[in-house]
């Protein structure tokens, strides 16, 4: 089966990312499933950048392991990545830049990319397009799809630029034709015939927000969340909405709360440092019972940390950040496709329960691209906040006690609906009650009372992979879903009794489903891309169970093998027996 990993590496700002993106789009249009992985330097120019794309005919769950084709624009890229290239894989390098030492296991194709671009095309900057032409010929990736894509991509810059790029592609291809083919990597056309979109997690999230009815976005630029703002800044006005870039993240969440109060669906997206600034206002949204969606595309912290690297380190902050008894819903997005539906659910939960919903994504998910089926928003029916009836507007009480703890919410403009959205503890009518001790307890109970219904929804949004009642369980959250799923499959293939539970709502937790899953296991592993095991810690509060933590804290996502190894280790430790595999026919 076709399943190849390409990695492009070079100096930041010299076209590494655009090479990767063009390769990705071409492979997707040629009918492959794709899954990209980006790491890039914190500098705008300079520093090492690389872009990886995996292409397959099967559903892809992870970025892959060994590299089949490494494209190295400079020696640094070669030195950083050469050891990841599998035996029998290929190295395509700029022969004008460096000469790698001979290596019998990897097939080398030295291409004078810089001089081809300079002498044959006349534009040095086109060396990355030359490289794409080389890849097209060497590995049988549709030349026509590349051509069409370049025409589209550069159309706005004029015909001359289009022609230069097409020439660069041909120059690369013509040079490659003269190279004797020494590897066995051939892609051809992929097997997928249906149309799919190529989206990053952040783009998918932006589309989902639009589908959910979000019409106001406020935010402050921060890596790796900024592209959500830029995406919506372009798209929202087309449907009557608007993006305001505020002076800081405090202001961003302030605008969101003001807009939500006035009756619009609004959101903000940020990363750890910005989210830290927002926590006071999140408490305000809780006590004033305002719907709000706040996205945290996590990066490595604390403080400025590693802005372009990934981590699942903000869970404690999302769950507990802020003072007082402060119930909010915390969700995590699991895949590029889930970014679309997940953010729709986040808006629904915010509207239904009139509380802030914190949505955790991360750099790994937000910035990788994948092929996804064209989203169908009708699968997540929209929920709107409960509005007061005419009857309820007579003697209106904004925070009236109700059996489900949700009070009808008016909006400015409604006759009789006037009230003060109050950050002070308040009565049912919304008057300050800063000295009424019993009232504070009743209102706190009201706000936490909503959690019963949220927990039921959390139980519905749990996904299972592998065995339903395994001896070795894996509990995951967020962007590790695909990697865990692939690891579980690897372990099952080797006869282990293993299964995974992946939860989308992290607070309140889906206790019923977790209990059912944990009962009967001999060991449960909780893999997290953080140092202390934040979700494991939350679960220990609810379960007297000796969870096994698997933590990775280097700014990079798990590979399936890392999780597989832990499954194997745990299985050996608790003497979980491997099933005899049926002999392969």
């Amino acid at each position, binding site marked *: 089966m076709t399943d190849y990993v390409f990695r492009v590496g070079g100096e930041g700002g010299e076209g590494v990312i655009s090479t990767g993106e063009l390769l990705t789009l071409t492979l997707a249009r040629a009918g492959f499933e794709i899954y990209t992985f980006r790491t890039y330097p914190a500098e705008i120019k300079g520093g090492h950048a690389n872009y990886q794309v995996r292409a397959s005919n099967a559903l892809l769950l992870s970025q892959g392991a060994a590299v089949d084709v490494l494209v190295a624009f400079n020696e640094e890229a070669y030195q950083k990545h050469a050891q990841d290239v599998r035996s029998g894989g290929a190295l395509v390098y700029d022969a004008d830049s460096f000469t790698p030492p001979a290596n019998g296991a990897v097939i080398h194709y030295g291409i004078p990319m810089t001089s081809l671009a300079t002498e044959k095309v006349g534009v040095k900057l086109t060396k990355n397009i030359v490289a794409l032409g080389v890849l097209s010929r060497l590995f049988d990736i549709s030349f026509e799809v590349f051509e069409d894509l370049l025409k589209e991509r550069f159309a706005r810059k004029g015909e001359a630029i289009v022609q230069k790029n097409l020439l660069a592609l041909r120059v690369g291809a013509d040079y490659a034709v003269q190279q004797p083919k020494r590897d066995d990597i051939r892609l051809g056309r992929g097997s997928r015939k249906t149309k799919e979109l190529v989206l990053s997690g952040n783009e998918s999230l932006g589309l989902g927000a639009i589908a959910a009815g979000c019409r106001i976005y406020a935010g402050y630029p921060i890596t790796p969340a900024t592209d959500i703002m830029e995406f919506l800044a372009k798209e929202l006005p087309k449907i009557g909405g608007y993006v305001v870039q505020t002076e800081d993240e405090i202001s961003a969440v302030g605008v969101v709360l003001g807009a939500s109060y006035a009756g619009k669906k609004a959101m903000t997206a940020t990363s750890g440092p910005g989210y830290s600034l927002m926590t006071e206002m999140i408490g305000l949204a809780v006590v004033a019972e305002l719907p709000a969606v706040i996205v945290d595309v996590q990066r490595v912290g604390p403080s400025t940390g590693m802005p372009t690297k990934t981590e699942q380190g903000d869970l404690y902050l999302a769950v507990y950040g802020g003072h007082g008894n402060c119930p909010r819903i915390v969700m995590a997005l699991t895949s590029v496709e889930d970014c679309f539906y997940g953010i729709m659910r986040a808006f629904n939960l915010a509207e239904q329960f009139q509380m802030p919903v914190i949505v955790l994504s991360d750099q790994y998910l937000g910035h990788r691209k994948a092929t996804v089926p064209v989203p169908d928003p009708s699968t997540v029916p929209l929920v709107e906040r409960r509005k007061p009836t005419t009857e309820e507007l007579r003697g209106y009480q904004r925070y009236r006690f109700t059996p489900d703890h949700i009070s009808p919410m008016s909006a400015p403009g409604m006759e009789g609906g006037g009230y003060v*959205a109050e950050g002070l503890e308040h009565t049912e009518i919304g008057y300050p009650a800063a000295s009424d001790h019993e009232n504070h307890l009743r209102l706190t109970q009201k706000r936490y009372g909503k959690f019963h219904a949220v927990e039921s929804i959390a139980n519905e949004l749990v996904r299972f992979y592998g065995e339903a009642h395994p001896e070795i369980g894996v509990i995951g959250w967020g962007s590790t879903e695909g990697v865990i799923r692939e690891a579980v499959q690897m372990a099952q293939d080797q006869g282990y009794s293993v299964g995974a539970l992946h939860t989308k709502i992290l607070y309140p937790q889906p206790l019923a489903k977790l209990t059912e899953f944990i009962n009967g296991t001999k060991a449960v592993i909780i893999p997290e891309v953080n140092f202390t095991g934040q979700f494991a810690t939350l679960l220990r509060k609810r379960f007297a169970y000796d969870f096994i933590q698997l933590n990775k804290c280097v700014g990079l996502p798990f590979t399936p093998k890392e999780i597989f190894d832990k499954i194997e280790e745990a299985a050996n430790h608790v003497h979980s027996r491997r099933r005899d595999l049926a002999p392969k026919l």
Partner: protein
Amino acid sequence: MSTADVEILPQSYKTDEHPIWCPGCGDFGVLSSLYNSLAGLKINPKDLVVVSGIGCSGRTPGFIKSYGFHSVHGRVLPVALGVKLANPSLHVIGVGGDGDGFAIGGGHIPHAARRNPGFTYLVMDNSTYGLTKGQYSPTSPVGFQAGSTPYGNIEQPINPLAMLIAYGATFVGQGYSGKPRELSDLITKAMEHKGFAFVNVISPCITFYNTYKMMPARLGELPKDHDVTNRVKAFELALQTDKTYLGVFYQVRQPTFEEGVANIIKSAQASSPPRLEEIFAEFD
């Protein structure tokens, strides 16, 4: 923006929530001037949103029969911007104090001024933190002695009017709670202004920094022939701190934030059909 069809009396904006302010507090004067302006402008309570921060001034929304938002310390302007952006047809008033507005919330002021959203920002300036018992504030004079400055304040006070004129606010005025009729006229002008209207109100704290006695000698009238569109002249007058001038210092008409937003939406919709499927098509 809609107004009520029937006549509304100032007292009809009163709620049955009793102000927590000390008897004699300047904020009572501000509130009654505000009631008068609202009645004079026939503002329909259902279309009015009063946004506040924290401090004595922060309680104001509870005393006005309308929609209100008592937010957190220093964040009046972002919340008010969100309300106005969500529904430009609403009348929006932000109220705060000198601590709320110029200390903890000071970072929002230049941005509110340059965005020019169509709402009024009323600062009840008493040059002290009344609710936490009288510490020095950003507008307290040098030498001000209080709990946190037992040896006297060594920091220069800021000049709210000069600051707002410098930041490009399109309406800058000053009132005094001891002159409620003039104050009401000023608030009315501010609410009629298209764009961001800043009104600094000297509103003495009767308990911790009672300036009522020294105010009459300090008060001055702006020159009769003052051209409110002359920014340099307005700035000069704002810098004359030996006198406390009352009235409109500066007023110009510039495009408002919501006008800009409406224009962008109009042009975006003209060039592209508003359908999710069309947006999907950009990613295949």
